[in-house]
């Protein structure tokens, strides 16, 4: 049974990365976290398990007692009435043991459920909180699928570990030790035979377990490869059909699929045979023990045992009432060794999973040394600014000066200046060179250029998703490095090309821009963005539930909602990164009026592929490989007859 279960868990969990093995440091950390999450319950559970294990070992002792009585009764011709008085107390004692066992067993099983889930919830929350604080670069450099699998597969391995492997390890371990003690108590000779058998089992399970782990890793790799192929073909399914390429695809797939089968088969073949082998070594052990026991019985060889040592009666001889329970103990012993062997896989998987969980948790979070904050303010007629708790519609940067302990206030206007900015994502690969951009409050600044020219990078620097290597960025005259990141970003509205909507109603999604916005404010924002028209035509209007990133909407509609989301935040500075790319030109022309109104009085950075979107900008920057090669308004650039002119006349292709 255990075999099936483990195998089932191995499939999704095993990752090609890293050799499976027991990393005790990591396991110890998991255990520490576990204890911390339930400092009372964990010790109680451990105590209960130890108690239950002792209970599980005891029946052998009672069985021996009862059999001894029966033998005696038969030998001496006692009647049942007489023997009863001897047997019943033993059984009653046994039953009281049982009752205690069941009570503590029930208690600790229930506690394990609570502890496991509490631990998982705590770990998940901690992971998520840590993740929220990670810099954008983490998400840009890690595959989203990998991050997701930490939350799903890796956490699942921890569940197995905490709810099954740890308790089983303790239980089986205790039983093995306990049984072994009792064995020694009865007969050292027989105990030694069992030890030899167990060593053989461990050797076999180590070898087979290693083999199965190796093939599981291979199977996982093939699975990844197959998945990649499937993904590509499913995405391109329509192209496949248009080119009647179906048969060729099936052939290619069969090749990959066959390889997957081969590895899959081998991995499971190893895992499936482990159980029968161990159990039959157990049978073998049973026979040997019985035979040797028989020989010892016959030969009346002295039987050294702790019992005899304790009783001080010298070395007794082996008796039948010892051999029979001993044989049962052999079974119990092998059964538990089997359990232990089966846990090894789970633990190896969990230590690999925990490693990835810890990797995520240990990643250095986004640093924020900013101390300039954004506050509500009132501006007097003479221009003096006073801070207030009320929502005034006016904002100011509160700038405490450490040197003299004074605080100055600067009105939030939306003046953004980049001076001689250099930047590189990866050391040695510079993407921006000496970029200087001055955006005065209310101006519309556009960036034009091929993919990879550095347009998006510039906006990433303004809101400090990334930090510049050299140069200066000032916001209302304040170095952005001094501004608290959350306040800086609050003052910037961003609409990206890849729109991300969240599960919830359309209204909730718009309100994401300003959590305390009223329905009216949200609808007004949607109207401004030109989204109101289509939203009201949705089956549920503003209450239409979106799921799966708004899969039931067109890309253009999603962009309109994203613009509305930005509008409701009412930021003094907006960044529109290809925000209208999926809205067709006719609709864009209709939306344009709203967009123009939205941009009124705000500093706006626009990135667009479509030149009609950027034409009316105050300044257009043409970027090429990280350099600004042309700058000026539309008329000026056209007159210059440079790159912009060629782009505009269609003689030159972007991207």
């Amino acid at each position: 049974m255990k075999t099936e279960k483990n195998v089932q868990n191995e499939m999704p969990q095993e990752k090609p990365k890293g050799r499976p093995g027991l990393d005790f440091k990591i396991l110890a950390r998991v255990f520490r976290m576990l204890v911390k999450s339930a400092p009372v319950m964990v010790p109680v559970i451990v105590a209960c398990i130890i108690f239950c294990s002792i209970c599980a070992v005891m029946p052998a002792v009672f069985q021996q007692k009862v059999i001894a009585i029966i033998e005696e009764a038969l030998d001496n011709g006692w009647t049942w009435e007489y023997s009863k008085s001897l047997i019943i107390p033993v059984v009653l004692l046994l039953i009281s043991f049982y009752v205690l066992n069941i009570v503590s067993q029930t208690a600790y099983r229930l506690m394990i459920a609570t502890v496991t889930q509490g631990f998982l919830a705590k770990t998940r929350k901690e992971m998520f909180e840590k993740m929220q604080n990670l810099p954008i670069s983490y998400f840009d450099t890690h595959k989203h699928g990998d991050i997701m699998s930490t939350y799903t597969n890796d956490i699942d391995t921890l569940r197995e570990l905490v709810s099954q492997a740890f308790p089983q390890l303790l239980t089986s371990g205790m039983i093995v030790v306990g049984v072994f003690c009792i064995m020694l108590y009865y007969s050292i000779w027989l105990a030694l035979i069992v030890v030899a058998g167990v060593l053989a089992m461990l050797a076999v399970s180590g070898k087979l377990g290693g083999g199965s782990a190796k093939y599981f890793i291979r199977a996982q790799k093939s699975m990844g490869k197959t998945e990649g192929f499937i993904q590509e073909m499913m995405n391109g399914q329509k192209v496949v059909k248009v080119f009647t390429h179906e048969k060729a695809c099936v052939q290619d797939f069969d090749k990959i699929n066959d390889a997957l089968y081969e590895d899959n088969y081998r991995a499971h073949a190893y895992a499936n045979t482990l159980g029968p082998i161990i159990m039959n070594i157990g049978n073998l052990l049973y026979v040997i023990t019985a035979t040797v026991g028989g020989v010892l019985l016959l030969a009346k060889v002295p039987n050294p045992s702790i019992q005899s040592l304790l009783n001080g009666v010298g070395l007794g001889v082996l008796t039948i009432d010892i051999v029979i329970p001993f044989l049962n103990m052999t079974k119990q012993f092998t059964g538990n060794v089997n359990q232990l062997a089966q846990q090894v896989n789970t633990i190896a998987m969990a230590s690999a999973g925990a490693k990835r969980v810890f990797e995520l948790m240990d990643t250095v979070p986004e640093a924020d040394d900013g101390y300039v904050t954004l506050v509500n303010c009132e501006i007097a007629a003479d221009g003096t600014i006073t801070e207030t708790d009320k929502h005034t519609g006016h904002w100011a940067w509160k700038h405490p000066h450490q040197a003299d302990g004074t605080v100055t206030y600067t009105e939030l206007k939306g003046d953004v200046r980049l001076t001689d900015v250099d930047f590189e994502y990866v050391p040695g690969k510079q993407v921006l060179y000496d970029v200087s951009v001055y955006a005065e409050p209310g101006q519309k600044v556009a960036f034009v250029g091929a993919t990879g020219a550095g347009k998006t990078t510039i906006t990433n620097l303004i809101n400090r998703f990334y930090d510049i290597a050299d140069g200066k960025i000032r916001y209302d005259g304040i170095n952005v490095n001094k501004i608290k990141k959350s306040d800086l970003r609050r003052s910037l509205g961003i609409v990206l090309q890849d729109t991300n909507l969240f599960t919830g109603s359309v209204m909730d999604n718009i309100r994401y821009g300003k959590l305390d916005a009223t329905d009216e404010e949200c609808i007004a924002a949607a109207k401004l963005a030109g989204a109101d028209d289509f939203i009201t035509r949705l089956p549920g209007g503003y209450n239409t539930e979106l799921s799966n990133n708004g899969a039931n909407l067109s890309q253009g509609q999603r962009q309109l909602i994203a613009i509305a989301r930005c509008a409701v935040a009412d930021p003094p500075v907006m960044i529109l990164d290809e925000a209208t790319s999926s809205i067709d030109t006719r609709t864009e022309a209709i939306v344009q009026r709203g967009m123009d109104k939205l941009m009124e009085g705000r500093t706006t950075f626009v990135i667009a592929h479509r030149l009609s979107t950027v034409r009316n900008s105050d300044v257009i920057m043409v970027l090429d490989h990280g350099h600004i090669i042309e700058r000026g308004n539309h008329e000026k650039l056209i007159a210059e007859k440079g790159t912009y002119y060629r782009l505009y006349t269609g003689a030159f292709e972007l991207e």
Partner: protein
Amino acid sequence: MFRRILKSVREFKTPTIITFICMVVEAGIECVIPFITAELINQLKNPDMHISSVIIKGLELLGMAVISLSAGWIGGRTCAKASAGFAKNLRSDLFAKIQGFSFESVDKFSSASLVTRLTTDVSNAQMSYMMCNRLAIRCPLMFIFSIFMGFFMGGKLALTFVVIIPILTFGLILIAKKAMPAFRSVFRKYDKLNESIEENVRGMRVVKGFSREDYEKNKFANATDAICRDFTKAEKIVALNNPLMVICMNFNMAFVLIVGSKLIIGGGTSLDVGHMSSMLTYGMQILMSLMMLSMIYVILTISMESLRRINEVLEEKSNLTNPENPVYEIADGSVDFEGVRFKYSSEAKKYALDEINLHIPAGATVGVIGGTGSSKSTFVQLIPRLYDVTEGCVRVGGRDVREYDLDTLRQNVSMVLQKNMLFSGTITENLRWGNAEATDDEIAEAAELAQAGEFVKSFREGYDKYIEQGGANVSGGQKQRLCIARALLRKPKILILDDSTSAVDTRTDALIREGFKKYIPSTTKIIIAQRIASVQEADMIIVLDGGRISAVGKHEELLRTSDIYREVYEQQVNGKGDDGDEN
């Protein structure tokens, strides 16, 4: 449903049957072993025991162990083979089935869900197949064997089974019944939680952009706590399995010890100490097999959802089938639409295309213009029968498209889709999708015609350049030109470009069209475009609006007669340099 899915076992029936046999043998022996051990114990107990008789029994037992080991070993391997093979066949069947899907079915399932069905769901099916294979026969057998042997050997002692079996069965059923819905609801919530994590990972720029980290943390903490509560509740129910089992085991032990000793001491039975200890083993085996049966039940229920989803794909009926006596010859590239109406699903209220009547002569160049949602793509997709009309008919070369062999039709009607795609592989490999037998010269020729030759030659590896998945390492414009070259290699009678030059500059775009005119004059060319410039010189321009033909004519004509056309034209001329829609 099971029958359909199990069809995929095919050549792995033999290992499946061998597994069954091995499991029967293993279960049988596992039940006989306690019997022999009882004998062995009695031999040991015999006052005039001979070591030889102990050894004989030992050897018997050893023999049993060897058989059981072989059966376990063989069964384990054949079971692995059968289940891995079943999964392989199932995956292959699903994949082949999907290859036969119509566009409608692809839309219905969505590619993401098809991927899940082919991967996770098949893995689940494999696991349950393996479980059933090894345990579904073994457990009931063990159960029956053990009861039989128990009564055979223990006589009255077996009455203990009469008590424990109903208790355990009843208890397990109760627990499973209570736990299943609890688990199902937890899993649903769990899926939702994962979705929301995914949303956060993907939308991290939005979260950070709006400084919503704390808001998201709160939201997540609440969702996690809710799951924690529900999950704990569900797991607590299942946690009762174990104490229940222990109660039964303990009862068995106490009963056997008391009643057993009474019977033995009281005399008058064949029962002895050896049998008594075997009764404990049988009791254990009965309990274990019941326990495993309940586990099979739980796992099957959980994987039922996967099986259902697999079955859904296998059962999908393609409404686009080859006719009985298909036509393999297409006369020419003329296209006729006669009273065509079309909607994507029978439930849809609105027709995506309505009242389309049109004749396109062979060799003509046709432009199609219209805004988003005007059904331009739908219109052309009816020609290679990617979808079937709802009413009316589409003719190619004078015959209804439904009369042709599908492959023949699509060979001759080559289409460059709007959402186009290159596959991982070299440029040559990608272009050969158009024609597997194309020579290198033909490939170069097609590439030149699509204005792709120049940039391909600029790559260090030329035509051997490796294209990453989805064509990630070439620019949008380059990708589009390669896709056109691929379509040209088919040497089609009809060539359809669905907004396929949007990322190509206007000059190159013009060169491509010029090439068409010069080198493939007899091919009917249908061009959907955002840019008026791309269709301006066409023999015929179709203006679509809301799924209807709003106007048909030449450029000058439409400027006069069609408001929509004029509006688009003026907007593009005034706001010149418009690069069109780029998706």
